């Protein structure tokens, strides 16, 4: 671009509309935070709906909740927290001026942990739900043992699939971002002066983690699990 030529002295990654790297980094970081606020409101709208329907149909939501596999939920929580840690370490590696191989390693680890999460989610949990006829719209079967709560259990599963699905979609978008970052890190683009893309993507990845931190108790835990015969 012609306008880039005006500031030939600036480091790579610098965009012409800014005065200096610091202003650019500040703007990138603030931009991501503002975006995360919109994400809070986006997921928040869904959470608000969930809260209201849970209050309306408590027995159905508790029944549904107890049908989820808490082991997968807990393991996945740990996996996702682990991926947050590796993400933070990847940024740290760039900040502290470590070798690019270390940055790449942590980024790849982050992606692997994210993949484990999605693998457990899709290949085990969702498939089991499908086999047990718990996916609304796909031969959902209301079981007699749910009794009174039965008719509204599908609504719980609607929320379950929306919320975890939307979360998974965010993770998949995260993969796209992480792969780009890995390539950039491999090319040695990041150093202790310039690591804003890493930092900003890290914020996003941690946010996705936080969403799960709330989804886990809301969906898996607060359904009166203690009252279940034959605990998982």
């Amino acid at each position, binding site marked *: 671009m012609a306008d880039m030529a005006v500031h030939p002295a600036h480091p790579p990654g610098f965009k012409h509309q800014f005065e200096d790297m610091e202003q650019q980094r500040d703007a990138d*970081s603030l931009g991501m935070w503002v975006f995360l606020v919109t994400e809070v409101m986006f997921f928040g709208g869904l959470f608000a709906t969930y*809260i*209201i329907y849970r209050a309306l149909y408590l027995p159905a939501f508790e029944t549904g909740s107890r049908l989820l596999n808490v082991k997968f939920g807990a393991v996945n929580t740990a996996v996702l927290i682990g991926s947050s840690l590796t993400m933070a370490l990847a940024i740290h590696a760039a900040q502290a001026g470590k070798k690019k191989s270390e940055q790449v390693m942590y980024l790849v680890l982050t992606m692997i942990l994210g993949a484990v999460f999605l693998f457990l989610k899709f290949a085990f949990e969702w498939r089991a739900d499908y086999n047990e006829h718990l996916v609304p719209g796909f031969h959902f079967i209301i079981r007699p043992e749910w009794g009174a709560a039965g008719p509204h259990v599908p609504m719980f599963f609607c929320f379950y699939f929306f919320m975890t699905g939307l979360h998974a979609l965010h993770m998949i978008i995260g993969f796209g971002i992480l792969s780009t970052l890995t390539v950039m890190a491999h090319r040695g683009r990041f150093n202790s002066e310039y690591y804003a893309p890493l930092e900003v993507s890290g914020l996003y990845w*941690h946010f996705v983690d936080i969403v799960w931190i709330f989804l886990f*108790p809301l969906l898996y835990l607060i359904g009166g699990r203690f009252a279940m015969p034959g605990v998982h």
Partner: protein
Amino acid sequence: MSAHVVAVKTYLGIFIALLVLTGLTTGAAFIDFGDLHTGIPLLRVIPLNTVVALAIAVVKMLLVILFFMHVKYSSGLTKIVVMAGFLFLAILVSFTLADELTRGWSPEAGAWNTALPTILPLLHGLF
């Protein structure tokens, strides 16, 4: 503004704390804490299991936000932006609930039946 570099030790500490909290919250789900009975309308029965689970989730969130996301070391502006998000979410949820949960309450029957008639005549007295 040169960004604050958090020590790897801190990251590892937070990670372990988060894992412990995950274990705690999972375990707590299998213990019956019972209900808290309050006399307050709208909040007559508070299931303590829900309170515990959400409280732990909030602590975990704070750890992630403050340390992994560096908000502890960030500018006031970032802190305000983060808080604004949660404040407006709280407005959405609380005002919606304020209507949804009081819908059945008519002026001649309802939990606030005793409180409001004492307030309104006072206001009315202004005229």
